[in-house]
């Protein structure tokens, strides 16, 4: 349980060890129970129980009106979520992978993100889109992208990207309760990861707060989503093999971005490596680098370093794919280089 998470006293206490996937399901279940306006739409979310089984059992419990199977029509049902949200509902749209969200990009960027401001604050768009990013399973160029930076660069949208089961539950609940459109970026490799998850149905992880996932003094790694999992492993190895104390800041939210927590860490360590699964060019690490040099100009002892996916569409062949992804070895090498080691 992180220090920054809010907890109201609602009776249920304690935690339970569960997978990221189960934590998401718990969040959905609790919010469906809490708020009649919440309903789910997506491909294979009902009878098939979800492409990645996040919604398993929910149709049995809540029925096919609230757990609504859709045809393969991303633009249609994401747009329908925009309309339903404007009409007072709280839709949660599941998109099978972030790659398919591109089909609905017009509804996300030109519609959902614009509703509140374009209509002068007269109507809002409280909707959630859940979708996994990530490569690493040889799914090739059209199914392996981490495109969250595209959405995080869009005013009007909020974007969160949990890296742990606890945050998966807490951030999804925050997203559903939020009055704006929120993209919840999940991640294929993390679905099976386990962790302790608070059982309190009022537990939420606030949007806009980063988490120091690992304390350290020599250097800071800033990351999100699966890059945080990789970075924590790299940090452990660097401690064991090089006696280095690496701090890992898990962003959790990309928009809004918690620059304060990042800057406080860099002010302490004076060196920073930004790690992301996506392409660094014009990416999350690009945004971080710009903000860090501004906030920490006098603190930096080395240029801001970045690690991300090689700037190629992800290839199929296993050896090429591994070479393209930001693996632990590349994170370690970047940390050592930034420390002049």
């Amino acid at each position: 349980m992180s220090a920054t998470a809010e907890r109201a006293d609602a009776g249920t206490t304690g935690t339970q060890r569960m997978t990221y996937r189960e934590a998401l399901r718990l969040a959905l279940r609790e919010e469906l129970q809490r708020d009649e306006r919440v309903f789910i739409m997506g491909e294979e979310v009902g009878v098939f129980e979800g492409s990645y089984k996040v919604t398993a059992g929910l149709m049995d419990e809540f029925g096919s009106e609230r757990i609504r199977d859709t045809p393969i029509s991303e633009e249609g049902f994401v747009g329908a979520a925009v309309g339903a949200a404007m009409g007072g509902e709280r839709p949660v749209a599941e998109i099978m992978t972030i790659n398919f969200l591109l089909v609905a990009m017009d509804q996300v960027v030109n519609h959902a993100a614009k509703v509140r401001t374009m209509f002068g604050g007269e109507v809002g768009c409280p909707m959630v889109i859940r979708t996994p990013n990530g490569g690493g399973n040889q799914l090739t160029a059209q199914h392996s992208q981490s495109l969250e930076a595209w959405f995080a660069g869009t005013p009007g949208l909020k974007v969160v990207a949990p890296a742990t089961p606890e945050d998966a539950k807490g951030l999804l609940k925050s997203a559903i309760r939020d009055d704006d459109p929120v993209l919840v970026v999940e991640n294929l490799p993390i679905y099976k990861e386990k962790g302790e998850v608070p059982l309190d149905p009022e537990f939420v992880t606030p949007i806009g707060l980063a988490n120091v996932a690992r304390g350290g003094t020599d250097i800071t790694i800033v990351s999100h989503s699966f890059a945080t999992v990789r970075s924590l492993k790299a940090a452990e190895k660097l401690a064991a093999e090089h006696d280095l104390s690496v701090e890992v800041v898990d962003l959790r939210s990309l928009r809004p971005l918690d620059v304060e927590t990042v800057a406080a860490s860099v002010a302490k360590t004076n060196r920073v490596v930004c790690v992301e699964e996506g392409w660094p060019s014009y990416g999350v690490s690009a945004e971080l680098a710009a903000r860090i040099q501004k906030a920490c100009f006098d603190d930096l002892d080395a240029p801001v370093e970045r690690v991300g996916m090689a700037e190629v569409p992800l290839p199929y062949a296993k050896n090429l794919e591994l070479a393209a992804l930001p693996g632990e070895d590349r994170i370690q090498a970047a940390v050592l280089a930034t420390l002049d080691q």
Partner: protein
Amino acid sequence: MTTMPAPATLSPAQLRELYERMVLIRVFETESERQYKAAKIGGYCHLSSGQEAATVGVVHTMQPDDVLVTGYRCHGFALARGVSPEAVMAELFGRRDGCAHGRGGSMHLLDVERGFYGGWGIVAGQLPVATGLALALVRRGKEQAVVCELGDGAVNMGAWHESLNLAALWRLPVVFLVVNNGYGMGTSVARASAEPDLYKRASAFRMHGERVDGDDLEAVLEASGRLLKRAREEREPAVLEVLTYRYRGHSVADAGLAYRTKEEVTERMQQDPIVRVRAKLRDGGCSDDELDAIDARIDERVAEAVKFADASPEPDVSELARNVYAPGSAGQFSRMRPGSPFGEETLVFDAGLGS
């Protein structure tokens, strides 16, 4: 208006050849599943077992200069179009001798020489692309046609409606081949489509649409031959819906029984397209020994393809950034410094992008 030999006039030799190709696809898919489970194949692997008559029938009516575009369930189409089992299997293995040099894998087979412009991975994404290929044929004055394969799940995408409208409006020579195997992933046609007679949707664009039994090779040959001829000669697009069934799940990872019953699968297997052609050949005087010999030869051929794929080298990691852009673009990126999406290993791996 029929150009293809009427079903009855298919020579025994032709029918035997088509039988052989159907068996090749079936054996290849079975072997693909085995190799996937042996972790030689990764990623997604969508099998087309059960759909051989539709696949082989349509492709047989294509001329050498016609163009083929498909979705991601494309092993069968590649093989039917004449891509060697070696090149397909090597692609599934992610090897250098694969038809996409190990870059694309199962969903992104292609063979430009044979006019096969790709397996595509985003549902319905290939429809506008196929429409554009048809436009290119027209602009270059070629009297050829495009076959655009899609699944029943693709017909509810905006790209379907937009592509059909363009093709009809501009009179483009494209036949949209809807392979209706009953399920888009785990969702039946009835649960996904307000108009489950998918071919009827063509009429919204004043386009010809029709439906045939996709497990009846001769029915497929007749309809496909006729519609492709019309497309080539009269620039009339069409929708051809072939009713078939996939025996396996959506992909190898899906057992395929969460949304349909074992009984249904067994029942559909009674109408097996390969068994039907085999019976026809037997009626025509082909002996069981002869047919078994064909089957045995195919088994060997597929085993050879596996051997070939296994022996083919992995792509070289130093070529990771190859072909991201056209030759000659390197200069444009040369001042972007390390991390630029081009060229040599150092450019890709320096600056924290690699060790």
